[in-house]
């Protein structure tokens, strides 16, 4: 909001209305003023009306760089609408807490007009009956059609054949590299980009070279305090292997993990730590700092960390898809999407909500600059995006993205990710043996698998 100087009127200049309102309140008639449409939460709650008629309420879970970027987009929407009152946006803690809030607010008939959800979670919200369907008519309100979106993502937004979410992006797990360190380690091609790394041996050689050049580590990623990250790392590597099977199947009713392959994958991941190529205990900011300060050649995380990396002065870095170490390319991914929580909406409200979604989709380039691969084709196919560096380097990761297996307890930040990720982290830290970890994961998942689906 700071980028748009307020008009003198908006900043509470002494207008006749304000004076009158103040006078009423001072005269002990504050209650009248409060209920007369200036949007007191109490009055709206008691009357069961909308808090601020004409305002779009929007909930999201974007922290860090994503949050900063989103703020730009929200400001742009407010500018388009010509009023700061047009939008009320709230950001909540990521993961289960966020989805619990969205669910309970919807059940309590006080949901936001528009909310962000991961596609892996949206299907559960839809199954629980908490979302309004996104029909062609709804899309048409904002001049959109389902053909405007990446087909794979659009299909993933469906539950029982009906779309319930409008996908905004695909966000794969990627490889960040410190270009200076990689240059010193001889890992860069003549074009200044990372020379392709193919296969396990090449990967370990690259890590070793990176370790020597940096004097620290070859690669870093969080092993502590970020269960989802541990799971993403494992899922990326495991999904690249021939013979991998989803950890769970039948909508979560059965555990189908290939135990042998999982043990071997974990042992391989752990061996990188044992060889000193990766740190055993580090959290996300720590892992990031190591790469940013040249103490590591690589850093692995979701592409969204690009905004943080860009904010580091003098950091010469690049991004690429996670190399194919085994039999086929794969990278853990999910998609952010817009959902319309179920509520009584009049046409104007629905149109306003869709107008807001459209405005954010139209600002897809701003979002793409944050590392995300746009699913809105007009943005994805634009020459602007195709030339966007280093983001377009991994754009095809969307085509081999490995999502969480569907279940009522899975999805980004879910119980599934927590229990699997925590155990994987323990292996990385050397506190659990791979075989014990896989047995533990299996036991935990079987516990969920036999629990009746509450949706």
């Amino acid at each position, binding site marked *: 909001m700071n980028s748009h100087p307020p008009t003198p009127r908006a900043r509470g200049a002494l207008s006749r209305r304000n004076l009158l309102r103040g006078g009423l309140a001072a005269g002990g008639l504050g209650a009248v003023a409060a209920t007369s449409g200036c949007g007191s939460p109490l009055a709206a709650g008691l009357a069961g009306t909308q808090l601020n008629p004409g305002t779009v309420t929007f909930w999201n879970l974007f922290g860090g760089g994503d949050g900063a970027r989103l703020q730009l987009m929200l400001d742009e929407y407010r500018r388009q609408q010509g009023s700061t009152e047009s939008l009320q946006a709230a950001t909540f803690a990521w993961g289960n807490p966020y989805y619990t809030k969205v669910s*309970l607010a919807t059940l309590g008939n006080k949901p936001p007009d528009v909310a962000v959800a991961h596609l892996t979670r949206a299907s559960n919200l839809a199954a629980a009956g*908490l979302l309004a369907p996104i029909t062609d008519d709804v899309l048409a309100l904002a001049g959109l059609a389902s053909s405007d979106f990446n087909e794979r993502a659009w299909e993933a937004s469906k539950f029982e054949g009906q779309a319930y979410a409008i996908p905004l992006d695909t966000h794969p797990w990627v490889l960040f590299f410190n270009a200076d360190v990689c240059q010193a380690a001889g890992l860069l091609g003549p074009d200044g980009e990372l020379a392709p790394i193919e296969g396990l041996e090449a990967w370990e050689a690259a890590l070793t070279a990176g370790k020597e050049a940096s004097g620290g580590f070859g690669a870093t990623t969080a092993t502590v*305090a970020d269960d989802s990250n541990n799971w993403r790392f494992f899922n990326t590597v495991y999904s690249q292997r021939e013979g991998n099977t989803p950890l769970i199947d039948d909508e979560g009713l059965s555990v189908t993990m290939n135990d042998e392959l999982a043990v071997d994958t974990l042992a391989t991941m752990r061996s990188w730590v044992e060889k000193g190529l990766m740190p055993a*205990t580090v959290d996300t900011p*720590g892992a990031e700092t190591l790469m940013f300060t040249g103490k590591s050649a690589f850093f692995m995380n979701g592409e969204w960390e690009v905004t943080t990396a860009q904010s580091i002065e003098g950091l010469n870095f690049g991004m690429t898809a996670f190399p194919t170490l085994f039999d086929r390319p794969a990278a853990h991914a999910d998609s952010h999407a817009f959902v319309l929580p179920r509520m009584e909406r009049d046409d104007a409200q629905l149109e306003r909500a869709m107008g807001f979604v459209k405005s954010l989709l139209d600002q897809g380039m701003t979002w793409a600059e944050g590392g995300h691969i746009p699913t809105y084709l007009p943005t994805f196919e634009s020459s602007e995006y195709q030339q966007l560096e280093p983001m377009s380097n991994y754009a095809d990761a969307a085509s081999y993205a490995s999502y969480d297996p569907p279940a009522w*307890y899975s999805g980004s930040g879910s119980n599934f990710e927590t229990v699997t990720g*925590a155990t994987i*982290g323990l292996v990385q830290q050397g506190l659990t043996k791979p075989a014990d970890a896989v047995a533990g994961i299996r036991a935990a998942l079987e516990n969920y698998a036999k629990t*009746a689906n*509450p949706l």
Partner: protein
Amino acid sequence: MSAQTVGAQPAVTNVPRGDEGQTGGRQRSAWLFIAPFGFFYVCFLLGPSLYMFVASFFDTSIVKNGLGNFIGLENYSALMQSRDFWSSMWHTLQFTIYTVPPLVILSFVFAVLANRMPRGSTFWRLAFFTPYILPSAAISLIWVFIFTADTGLWATVQKWLGSEAPTPVLGTPSLAMVGVAIATIWWTIGFNFILYLAGLQDIPRELYEAAAIDGATPWQQIRHLTIPLLSRTTTLVLLLQIIASLKIFDQVYLMTSGGPGTSTETALVFITKTGFTDFRIGAAAAASFLLFVVIVAIAVIRQLAERAQQKGA
């Protein structure tokens, strides 16, 4: 809380009894005065508790209307076989074991010391009590910052002491609960501290003077005067502390959200997760009821212990 009601009792019995009509009127007004509390008690405690008990026999889902299907004791039997439930109960107990002894003993020690300070006792009282007035969210932020892996204050201290790879307290399953316990002790010690201070004020100074004249050392005074005379305060503090520790939720939720994995998932975190994140209200109700039974059992045992103690005295 201090047991100084003895003097007030005759005054109550000396009030002349009115006739039947008056008593009826007084009863009515008593009911009226209690009514607002009664209303909230029924609406927000008894009612929901009853609903909880009933729901524990159904496969109630928060996203479906009504109670769902009647499944008898299935929720309970599933819980009995659930590793997660038992481990959450164990974590609750673990937290209680970690926090109750220090919170009782340390608050006693600090109260005695602060009480003996010739000057600046206000400062010490304030110093020990101030953390208690902070919200749990602030406490959690402070301690998460201290325990941040690799770069936090604690990791830095460990590095000063020569550790190459400091242990991430909140990221290690065996240590995470200790971290939460330390934060809790620092946060809540002020409450017990105040209770003990109040108890200490009730001990007549003459007793100490008499003891001092008889040649009792400060330690003997504490051992033979302070501790026995504070025994009632101690039983109260102990009970309140055990119940408070069994209800541990905020710090765990905010500092570790039950992690790593489920290694700090306490009973209330398990119940919240089951009920509101997994939508399984029926199962959460059954778990709540079991926790309720445990807490009541502990309160009853404590009551019996106190009765035995009084008989012994």
